[in-house]
């Protein structure tokens, strides 16, 4: 493997701690990733030496803070292949980025009867804002189904997109691990005259992405899944769209002028950044991106592909058909998110047993209830891999699962 995991682990203080005498085996990065010291140090350093509000003061530390904040924006933009920082709007998280699109672009552009096409593998963050618009203005939602290899079933894509105004799709499923090939989806949507929103919350942390090569209109990302702090995310969108869109939240920062009889909006991207932003978090996110870039996103991806192969093989070896894995079998089609279930043992009970061993996995519906309904299960356990995981972590998972299986066997 191309990453030196031992060295990486040393950068993550929490991973060197023990619980109940066990080393912490963190397998829930798809939910939120751990943070390296460099991220904490960057945030600490800003607050210790250069903290002030941004874009307001004319004193030195205010200028320093503003420079650091805007430098973070450049880092994020470059990281995802955005050419222009005006197209990168900071939000609270990916959820807010998608809500921004639904609220601002959606309300200005969609009308009763207009169609928004989603997929059955979307996270609630890319479903509920569209349900809210459906309730408000009567748009119609259509769903791209999944096939029995847990990929998007594109056999009726043309029909689904026929007359659609928007395709909103995840680049990688947070339950199945499925990686969706975005450019052909964008091409099909374009041909149908639909705009495209890509939820890159799960893809951006794990592979090199290029929003311009995708050709999408809107891309949502979130810092905390990519080694950065919680509380900040971003919406990338094409400039023409952002310029035409009405503002989202109103307040300070997003205005150029306010009078008793109205207001005018600020330039991009600040037009969509009302109020004091997550300044320290932006700086932390910039440091997270520096960390990932130092590792190299290709190396990160290669490492995770290899580890995912190892994990899938280890689970199949040990449990065979006794454990159902929900996701594509081939690592060419997927990332390191592995959902699984013993048919007779509840996901909660499995995670509880694993927790005793210091192994953190998620159990539940993973904010993808429509997908759970399609899979006809209430919940799965999910192990997800990142830069600091290695084969020893996977081995610990397999041993922990064996314990759970024995413990709950009827």
């Amino acid at each position, binding site marked *: 493997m191309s990453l030196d995991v031992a060295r990486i682990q040393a950068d993550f203080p929490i991973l060197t701690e023990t619980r109940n005498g066990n080393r912490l085996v963190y397998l829930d990065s798809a939910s939120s990733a751990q943070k390296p010291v460099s991220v904490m140090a960057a945030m600490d350093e800003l607050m210790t030496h250069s903290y002030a509000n941004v874009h307001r003061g004319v004193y030195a530390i205010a200028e320093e803070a503003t420079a650091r904040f805007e430098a973070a924006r450049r880092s994020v933009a470059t990281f995802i292949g955005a050419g222009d920082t005006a197209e990168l709007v900071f939000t609270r998280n990916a959820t807010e980025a998608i809500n921004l699109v639904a609220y601002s672009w959606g309300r200005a552009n969609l009308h009763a009867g207009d169609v928004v096409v989603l997929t059955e593998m979307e996270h609630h963050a890319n479903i509920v804002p569209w349900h809210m618009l459906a309730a408000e203005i009567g748009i119609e939602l259509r769903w791209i189904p999944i096939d029995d290899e847990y990929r998007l079933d594109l056999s009726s894509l043309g029909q689904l997109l026929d007359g659609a105004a928007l395709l909103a799709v995840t680049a990688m499923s947070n339950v199945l691990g499925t990686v969706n090939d975005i450019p052909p989806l964008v091409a099909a949507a374009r041909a149908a005259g639909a705009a495209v929103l890509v939820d890159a919350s799960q893809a951006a942390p794990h592979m090199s992405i290029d929003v311009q090569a995708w050709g999408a209109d809107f891309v949502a990302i979130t810092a905390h899944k990519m080694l950065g702090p919680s509380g900040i995310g971003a919406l990338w969108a094409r400039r023409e769209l952002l310029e035409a869109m009405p503002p989202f939240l109103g307040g300070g920062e997003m205005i150029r002028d306010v009078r008793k009889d109205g207001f005018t909006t600020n330039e991009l991207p600040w037009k969509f950044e009302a109020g004091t932003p997550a300044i320290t978090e932006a700086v932390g996110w910039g440091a997270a991106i520096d960390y990932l870039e130092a590792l190299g996103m290709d190396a990160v991806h290669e490492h995770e592909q290899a580890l995912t192969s190892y994990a899938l093989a280890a689970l199949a070896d040990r449990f065979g058909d006794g454990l159902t894995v929900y996701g594509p079998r081939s690592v060419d089609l997927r990332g390191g998110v592995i959902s699984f279930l013993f048919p007779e043992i*509840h*996901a*909660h*009970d499995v995670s*509880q*047993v694993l927790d*005793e061993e210091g192994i953190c996995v998620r*159990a*539940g*519906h993973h904010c993808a*209830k429509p997908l*759970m309904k399609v899979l006809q299960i*209430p*919940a799965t356990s999910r192990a997800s891999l990142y830069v600091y995981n290695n084969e020893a972590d996977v081995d610990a998972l397999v041993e922990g699962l064996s314990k759970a299986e024995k*413990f*709950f066997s*009827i």
Partner: protein
Amino acid sequence: MDDLYRDYILEHYRRPHNFGVIDEPTASFEGSNPLCGDRITVQLGITDGVVERVGFTGRGCAISQASASLLTDEIKGKPVADVAALRADDLLDLLGIDISPARLKCAMLSHETLQKALAETDAASATPAPEGSPA
């Protein structure tokens, strides 16, 4: 782990008491755990203000199954007023284990569902019975 999954908890999980549907229930409610999407249905057969019969169906984790098993045992044969007065703490006492905040919803699913089923009975007795019996 053995603190949570005591032998009697596992026993109730493996062979839950009162599992199944009952004939002609006078009240029935399906509750769900928002955390994991588990669903259980509690059915009551109330005669002369007493819970004569009770059954539950649905699958869940060991904690929610054991809790439903213990709770349904507890209420069988009791006056409705006593059953309605059962508090969450009473069920925790019945379970006799320390439940972490994360698992509290699992433990309480049967209790919440039971209370809703009872509320349905109240509503039904307060208003003229609709055609057929409520299911």
